[in-house]
């Protein structure tokens, strides 16, 4: 099935000759496209699931750990996004990772496989297993191909992520063991967990929710557990960072949508204020920090922080607009941020530096690059006509409806700030004068253009026609999880009815 | 009563020689002391109805093991080891955990009703039952039994010990004295 495809691809890639980078690239690209070819039917199939087996049982307690795969609109779009980004990353990687293309491809495939696993899991522990397993290829991506300080960054990333998953792990221990003592037959699959959690004492639920949420906060990441992010994204290889921010970070939001909120609806609702506040703080801190970064990819990293913070805040409005908007945001941000990372990576190979001041005048020297970069930047800013606008608009609508104008206004400052830091980046990269004395035209690899351009086209397409994605949320996510549905806020009778 | 007398003699000798092992300067002295301990323990064994064990103790331990030890000491004559101080600060300090071990062992063995519980009772078997016959019957009775199987394992153990000793100590004919230097002719 879908899960096996990237794994198989990873292994096949691994056995390719390490010497001939070009042929390796070709083969791995073919494999990536094949994986994508397998993935898209899943997206179009809508809600599908395999049968669920028992993976193992905890001795004595009889807690059932299950194993099964299921996909719906939410997973489907993220799967599709993943399957698009991986070949794109491969296309953009040759200049960045050099002769290590085979290893890079293998790691990317592994990352893809674990992401698929996490997205398709029906069991909490199964999800967690993939959630953790994802760290391995992600760490490899950072540690193996990145910049000078990559090991420290990778270490920071690994330790932070592991530490972040501790609370979730503890919550799983609790769910797997303690309810047994009060007479429940426990199984960790997400559907039956919902019923189980409802029977737990409120205090326990509260703590479990906090624990679960913390793990996902680290993944997104949200302030103040974000400090791994900038290093990881800037020290890792740019295509790798693209994958990290493009997909892996989304697992955090996905976790909220799929696990934290459906399992603990009341707690989520009760604590919504905290999370919205966290999200808003993340939005602002990310944007403000992005304004001051000296390295291109750090700007992008904090920009990701800011954008996903908005998603976090909006999820906790529990409004249909927000749910749709978040999915759209994930896709839009996945595409635009990844595109920016890809392009920045290529720009870094030109200047040999990551510092923004070492770029310049790329608009003259590499026009195609500049066009792509500018479009990607504008998409990330959320210019109307790109998917990012629709997503941000929906999220702001949701925030406004749920919390009023002031909150929406605070969140909306991202509109200004994101423009500020993104334009600063654009200015430094594309415009001005070159840092070099004799600027010569630079060769922009056609492969990268072929990789990025379709992503940007998709962004524009979804900017005008976001229907399919929005519908996915509506039909799949909201109908599948009853507890989530119950949460969705009905509109307050509008003013005319008062 | 006479048993008690012997016991006290033997035990004092055993302890004294054991102490001698601890404090003697030269290994050879210690080895001699060790023989003393072995022999007096053999005496005690014979007091508690284990004549065969007493014999073994003298034959194997005192006769073979310690002799081997002495032999090696003599071989390594330079191992007189005048440089190594007999006692140093750590040596003294190390006595403390040993003493503590003894203290706790004794305290637990002697404590509460434990000691009472294994006092000899009139129903206890008579002395002198650890004869060769009794033990060999148990070991190599008319059937294959647990103990004889374990005896085979001991054979295996000795085999491995011999092989191991060979591996550790044998001078290979084709092994140059200084193996760390590159061998002539490749390998």
């Amino acid at each position, binding site marked *: 099935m879908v899960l096996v495809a990237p794994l198989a691809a990873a292994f096949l890639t*691994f*056995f390719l000759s*390490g010497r001939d980078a070009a042929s390796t690239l070709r083969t791995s690209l073919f494999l990536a496209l094949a994986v994508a070819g397998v993935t898209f039917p899943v997206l179009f199939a809508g809600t599908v699931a395999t049968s669920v087996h028992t*993976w*193992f*049982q*905890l*001795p*004595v307690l*009889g*807690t059932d750990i299950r194993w099964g795969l299921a996909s719906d609109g939410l997973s489907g779009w993220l799967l599709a996004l993943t399957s698009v980004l991986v070949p794109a990353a491969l296309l953009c990687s040759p200049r960045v990772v050099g002769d290590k293309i085979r*290893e890079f491809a293998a790691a990317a495939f592994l990352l893809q496989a674990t992401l698929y696993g996490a997205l398709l899991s029906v069991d909490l522990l199964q999800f*967690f*297993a*993939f959630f*953790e*397993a994802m760290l*391995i290829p992600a*760490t490899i991506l950072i*540690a*193996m191909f990145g910049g000078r300080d990559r*090991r420290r960054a*990778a*270490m920071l990333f*690994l330790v932070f992520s592991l530490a972040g998953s*501790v609370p979730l*792990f*503890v919550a*799983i*221990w*609790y769910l797997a*063991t*303690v309810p*047994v*003592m009060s*007479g429940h*037959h426990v199984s960790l699959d997400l559907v039956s967990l919902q019923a189980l959690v409802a029977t737990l004492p409120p205090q326990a639920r509260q703590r479990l929710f906090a624990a679960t949420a913390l793990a996902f906060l680290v993944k997104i990441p949200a302030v103040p557990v974000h400090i791994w992010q900038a290093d990881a994204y800037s020290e890792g290889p740019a295509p790798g960072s693209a994958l990290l921010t493009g997909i892996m970070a989304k697992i955090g939001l996905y976790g909220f949508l799929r696990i934290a909120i459906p399992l603990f609806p009341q707690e989520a609702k009760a604590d919504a204020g905290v999370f919205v506040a966290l999200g808003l703080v993340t939005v602002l801190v990310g944007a403000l920090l992005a304004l001051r970064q000296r390295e291109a990819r750090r700007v992008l990293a904090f920009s990701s922080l800011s954008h996903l913070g908005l998603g976090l805040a909006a999820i906790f409005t529990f409004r249909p607009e927000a749910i749709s908007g978040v999915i759209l945001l994930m896709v839009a941000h996945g595409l635009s941020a990844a595109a920016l990372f890809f392009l920045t990576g290529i720009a870094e190979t030109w200047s040999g530096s990551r510092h923004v001041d070492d770029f310049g005048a790329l608009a003259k020297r590499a026009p195609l690059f500049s066009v792509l970069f500018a479009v990607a930047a504008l998409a990330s800013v959320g210019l109307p006509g790109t998917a990012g606008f629709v997503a941000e608009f929906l999220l702001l609508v949701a925030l406004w409806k749920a919390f009023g104008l002031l909150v929406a206004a605070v969140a909306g400052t991202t509109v200004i700030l994101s423009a500020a830091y993104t334009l600063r980046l654009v200015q430094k990269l594309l415009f001005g004068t070159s840092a070099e004395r004799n600027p010569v035209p630079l060769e922009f690899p056609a492969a990268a253009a072929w990789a990025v351009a379709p992503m940007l086209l998709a962004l524009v397409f979804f900017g005008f026609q976001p229907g399919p994605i929005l519908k996915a949320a509506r039909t799949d996510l909201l109908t599948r999880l009853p507890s989530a549905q119950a949460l969705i806020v009905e509109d307050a009778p509008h003013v005319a009815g008062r | 009563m006479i048993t008690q007398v012997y016991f006290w003699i033997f035990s004092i000798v055993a302890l004294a020689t054991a102490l001698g092992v601890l404090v003697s300067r030269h290994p050879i002295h210690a080895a001699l002391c060790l023989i003393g301990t072995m022999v007096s323990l053999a005496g005690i064994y014979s007091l508690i109805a284990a004549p065969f064990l007493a014999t073994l103790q003298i034959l194997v331990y005192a006769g073979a093991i310690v002799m081997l030890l002495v032999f090696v000491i003599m071989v390594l004559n330079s191992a007189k080891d005048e440089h190594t101080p007999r006692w140093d600060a750590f040596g003294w300090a190390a006595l403390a955990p040993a003493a503590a071990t003894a203290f706790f062992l004794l305290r*637990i*063995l002697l*404590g*509460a009703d*434990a000691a009472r*519980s*294994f006092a000899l009772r009139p129903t206890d078997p008579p002395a002198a039952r650890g004869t060769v016959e009794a033990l060999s019957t148990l070991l190599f009775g008319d059937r*294959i039994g*647990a103990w004889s199987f*374990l005896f085979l394992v001991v054979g*295996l*153990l000795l085999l*491995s*010990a011999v*092989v*191991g000793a*060979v591996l*550790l100590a044998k001078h*290979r004919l*084709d092994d140059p004295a*200084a193996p760390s230097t590159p*061998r002539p002719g490749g*390998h």
Partner: protein
Amino acid sequence: MLQVADLLPFLGPILLLVLGALATLVAEPLLSRADKHRVLPWIGIVSTGLAAVALAFTKSGHLWGILAIEPTRAGLVLVLLAVLALGLAALQRNLDSDDFPGGEPYALMQLAAVGLLLMVMASQTIALFLGMELASLSIYPLVGCRRDRSESAEAVLKYFAQGAVFSAIFLYGAALSYGATGTVFLAANVLPGRETVQMLGFLLMAVGLLFKIGAAPFHFWSPDAYAGAPSGVTAFMAGAVKIGAVAALGNLWIGHLVSLSAFPSYMVGTAAGAHFPPISLGLQVFSRILQTIFQVRRGLSVAGFIGFALTIFGATAILSIAIGSLSLLGQTSVRRLVAFSGVANAGFLVVGFLLPGLFIANILLTPTLYYLAAYALAAAGTMAGIAALTGPGDGGDHTSSLTGAARKRPLIGLSTTVLLASLAGLPPTAGFVAKFQILSQLFLNASLDPAILQRILPPALQHLSQGWLLAVPIGAFAFAIVAAAGYFKLAVALWTDPVPNSREPEPVPVLLGWAVPLAALAVVALAIFPRALFGG
């Protein structure tokens, strides 16, 4: 009455291994030096494989009560054989690349495996002691077999001296246990009034075995021994010795629990309390045992014993996890890293002895044994992988000697990385499932009702609150993360760019080339099918 013919199926694996060792010894002088390392390992592998086949035909049962085998132990034996195969393969690599003048190590390793097999199967202290000594006396020379290297001598010196002392301690404990129960069997009723002696005996034997497991504070030998030995031997030690010792310690512990469960007081007053509604038989039995055992606190009660035993295990476990994880963090020596990983994992294994599942005889130690299998495969596999990736003399045993090694041999590098991940407890490896099982059950212990906790806990720990107990699994997990950081450094070294102009690595022998990936595969397979070995 048993006939020799009846023994054969039961002892098949052991006999085949012994035969293999003897064949190796016989063939050794007949072969030229180069051929020794080409032929002898294969003899060992064949006999190991045959032993594994024989294992399939072995029926459950016991031999005069001293050796027993049932599916659980058979599973352990299987893992042991796998580790032996890994060890032999790696040893071939070491000795071949060192041009070692002799083939005895192969035989010794098989003999050591026989000893460990006996430890797994033993249910009687003398057999256990003999197995332990057989294993130890075979491994000491293996550790010291590189006589040309001074650290080898140093390692064998320390290992031997400490090992001999703790053997003696074990024997003394066996004697006391014999005195307390009147038999040398592990599960036997205590003679009236000798409970304290029993506990003392248990303590000393447990310490002897904890030494073999390498749990702190009895772990000092392991870094030195691991670092002084050829990496193949390290692989074997890391995996196999732990299997033997943990199995033995488990037998000891279960045996004592079984004999305690037969205590007359167990049968009285076993009404199920209101707090534990009977939902499953297992749980019912569990709650009864908890209630009955711990309610009765006579002066020298069973509760006292269990509480004390839990204290031993708890203290060593926590200490081991902490020391092991912290020490491996900054290691630059590969094998010391693996050694401290062994210490940390020993802590997790010992934690397994605290599980509630232990109180039900038919469940035994499933999570612990699963952990054991996962760890043994991963540790042995890792060391074997390192052996394959380094050159002669194990490349000086510094992580820097491994720089870029995986890039030159991607398959083995990847396998080694997967095995390292298993050691660290990351999915998708068995290490993850194992840690989850053990820690979640431990978590259950800590989440029990405070009133019950007060009864389980030994007096010394009774002032501890529930939060403190929760800290045990959580702290264990936190240290696991520290350890993961340590493994990460090694993995990074494996995958960084190779030093330019470094020479081409020697070809890896066929055996090792297959063994390491298979071990990695096994570790992953064990994660996907966790019930394959021990059920559960």
